[in-house]
């Protein structure tokens, strides 16, 4: 899984901690999401996309 969370985060000048606060998760969760080390639930993916004002499929890509 690849994500563009870092790119969108930079666009809105947010730190990982600030994004975590807005989404309502721990900072480590955002770190792991950005690194592709954690597959979020649909709800979390939706919350992150909504916070970053984008769509889920623009934020997360799954490669075989």
């Amino acid at each position, binding site marked *: 899984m690849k994500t563009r969370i870092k790119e969108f985060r930079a666009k809105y000048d947010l730190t990982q901690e600030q994004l975590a606060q807005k989404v309502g998760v721990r900072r480590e969760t955002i770190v792991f999401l950005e690194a592709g080390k954690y*597959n979020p639930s649909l709800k979390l993916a939706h919350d992150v996309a909504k916070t970053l*004002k984008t769509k889920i499929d623009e934020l997360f890509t799954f490669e075989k």
Partner: protein
Amino acid sequence: MRNIKNKSKSGVAKDKREIVVGFIVAALVLATTVLYVTNMGSINLSEYSTILIIIVLVIGATWVLVDRMRNVKAGLPAKDEMTVRLMHKSGYYAFLASIYIALALMLSSDFLEESNGAGLDAGQIGGGIILLSAIVFMGSYFYLSHKGAAE
């Protein structure tokens, strides 16, 4: 920029309460262990290993509690879906390990009985299963905390 979740005051208070209770329990376990050690006349090898395992578990639990406390202080939740998923996976591994640990301890007991005339009693086997499964749980949790849960 949207705020999806601002944890309610009662949610933050609940997190803090759980952390405080966790610290109290860890302190009580440590105090009980220290009392046990100081009151024992002599300690044999199996008791040393039990005490060491308990200390390792308390240190591990304290590390997790300190990490949660840091998150709560930063205005973040103590637990979220990722920590819950990691705990579930660790619990799964600990459960599987407990089956093999139980088998290993029972076989060891039979072997010791045949060679020394005295095997392990039910309390030692039960205690061994609990402690070793807890070690597997803690080890799995720390390993997954670094590796992540990408499946």
